[in-house]
């Protein structure tokens, strides 16, 4: 494509063209990235929200700028799709990797960085620059919105590329998980209580040690992902590895569907939520106590899949 326009003697150009080629010959379901035709130092990308997180089903677009000294200097990243984890149109650069920028190394690539970026989405921003911390419900509704249309950004040529990437990602990324049919069918207010109850049960699960212990394996999975992430950009070629971890981690069994009902909650945050949350929390605690009682009396397996 752009081969004739660029000085192939320029090592950065050579390297970037190789990355484009590599990207095209090993496409991933998790992300897609292409340079602008007019400037191969300027890329558009879209990543898929990691599954089993509130970003699942989301398609997040962004822009990558490669420095003239690439691969000696790191690329910089910005997101264009509102996502609730990173600010949009703000360079996130390497702050996300927790490593000093001069520790960028030429053995990393756009692919490595994108994989790291995906892995970072569900992590706690800890107040890092360019990060935001939205509620899960808000992030989920942003994930739904992200599919509806690609962001408007830049020149027509760039917009064309963004739209192309969006189409392609739409075909690859299954939609945001829907409400389960049983909950879907009920539309009257009492249903809300049910939703809130389960979601707050889950929220409450983390502080209550016993609940976390007997409940879902998610805290552990979360930790594992975080650990992987810290390591992610450092590997020689960690791409597939991390991607695999992300996909594989939550697939520990169908029991998760029962244990993580908040995945199905689609309603955006709402002021009344707090009132209901309080009620829900009370109920949740009672449910947990009941479960614990059942467990201690030997009937636990019915409720807890033998965990």
């Amino acid at each position, binding site marked *: 494509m752009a081969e004739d326009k660029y000085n192939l003697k*320029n*090592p950065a150009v*050579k*390297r970037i063209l*190789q*990355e484009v*080629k*590599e990207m095209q010959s090993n496409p991933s379901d998790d992300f897609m990235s292409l340079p602008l035709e007019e400037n191969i130092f300027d890329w558009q990308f879209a990543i898929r929200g990691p599954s089993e997180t509130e970003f699942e089903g989301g398609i997040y677009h962004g822009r990558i700028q490669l420095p003239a000294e690439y*691969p*000696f*200097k790191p690329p910089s990243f910005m997101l264009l799709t509102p996502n609730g984890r990173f600010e949009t149109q703000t*360079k996130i*650069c*390497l*702050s996300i990797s927790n490593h*000093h*920028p*001069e*520790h*960028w*190394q*030429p*053995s*990393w*690539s756009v*692919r490595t960085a994108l994989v790291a970026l995906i892995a970072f989405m569900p992590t706690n921003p800890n107040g890092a*620059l360019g990060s935001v911390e939205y509620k899960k419900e808000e992030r989920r509704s942003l994930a739904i919105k992200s599919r509806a249309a690609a962001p408007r950004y830049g020149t027509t040529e760039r917009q064309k590329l963004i739209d192309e990437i969006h189409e392609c990602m739409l075909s690859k990324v299954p939609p945001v998980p829907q409400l389960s049919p049983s909950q879907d069918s009920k539309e009257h207010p009492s249903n809300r209580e049910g939703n809130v109850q389960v979601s707050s049960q889950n929220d409450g699960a983390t502080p209550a040690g016993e609940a976390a212990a007997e409940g879902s394996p998610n805290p552990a999975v979360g930790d594992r992902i975080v650990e992987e992430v810290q390591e992610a950009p*450092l*590997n*020689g*070629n960690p*791409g597939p590895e991390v991607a695999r971890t992300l996909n594989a981690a939550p697939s520990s069994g169908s029991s998760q569907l029962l244990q993580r009902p908040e995945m199905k909650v689609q309603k955006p945050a709402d002021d009344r939520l707090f009132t209901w949350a309080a009620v829900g929390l009370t109920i949740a605690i009672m449910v947990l106590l009941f479960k614990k009682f059942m467990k201690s009396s030997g009937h636990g397996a019915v409720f807890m899949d033998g965990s």
Partner: protein
Amino acid sequence: MQNQDGVQVDGEVESATSVPIPEFDEWANFGDQDIMQQHSAIRAEEAEKIPFLGDKEPLSSLAAEYQSGSAILLEKIKVLGEQYAAIRRTRGDGNCFFRSFMFSYLEHILESQDQSEVDRIKANVEQCRKTLQSLGYADFTFEDFFALFLEQLDSVLQGNEASISHDELILRSRDQSVSDYVVMFFRFVTSGEIRKRAEFFEPFILGLTNATVEQFCKSSVEPMGEESDHVHITALSDALGVPIRVVYLDRSSCDTGGVSVNHHDFIPAGSDLPNASGGSEKVSPFITLLYRPGHYDILYPK
């Protein structure tokens, strides 16, 4: 003691930069971009002072540097003068060991036209390539660096259309787009060797930084500008099968009264050098580097 040496040697390198540090209301606003900008500003200023690779200077220029300095150092430089004729300085940008090695090696090939040495190192380079592949590096992340080094290797051999002169070799060594690529090539080779023989290198690395082999390679070998230690030198020497002599110029003195200058020869382990089995004594390094705490330059024997 050594610290003082460091300050003295590196004083010109590190402390004399006058890049203004912008005022920041909050350190929280001091982002990566700012750090990198400041870094490159310091580097740029540094670059004006000394090129990646300096000119050959008589050893007396080294003595001049310490005119008002330590008597022991002056003594030692005098002793050095008995064996060595000249010094060629490299920029103190953290890549000085690799850069010194690069020029020293290529210059040796240019002058000796040692075809068999070129064939030998090429075989080792191929081995390094396989090592990196087996460690899971994607080809495109390192092949440019390998290709550029092999290109330089061919061009210092005379008699083909790509051949270059000694002057051209110096120019290329000062040209970032060649020089840094070759430095990075060595970093890949070093990292690959350390990872491949992680068990061997682990205790040395633990002694240095208390990091794992993996962490060490990620933070101290592969990133540009990270300084080299004996671990790097051992690994590079082993991987490429090139012996290296390092002469130490520091303030340590021996009890015997007479001043002597220590050196250490890094002799490749298990290399396919013809006499590697017998004694390492027989292999004499054709690369000699002068080490002053924190910095390497090239030395020329008489």
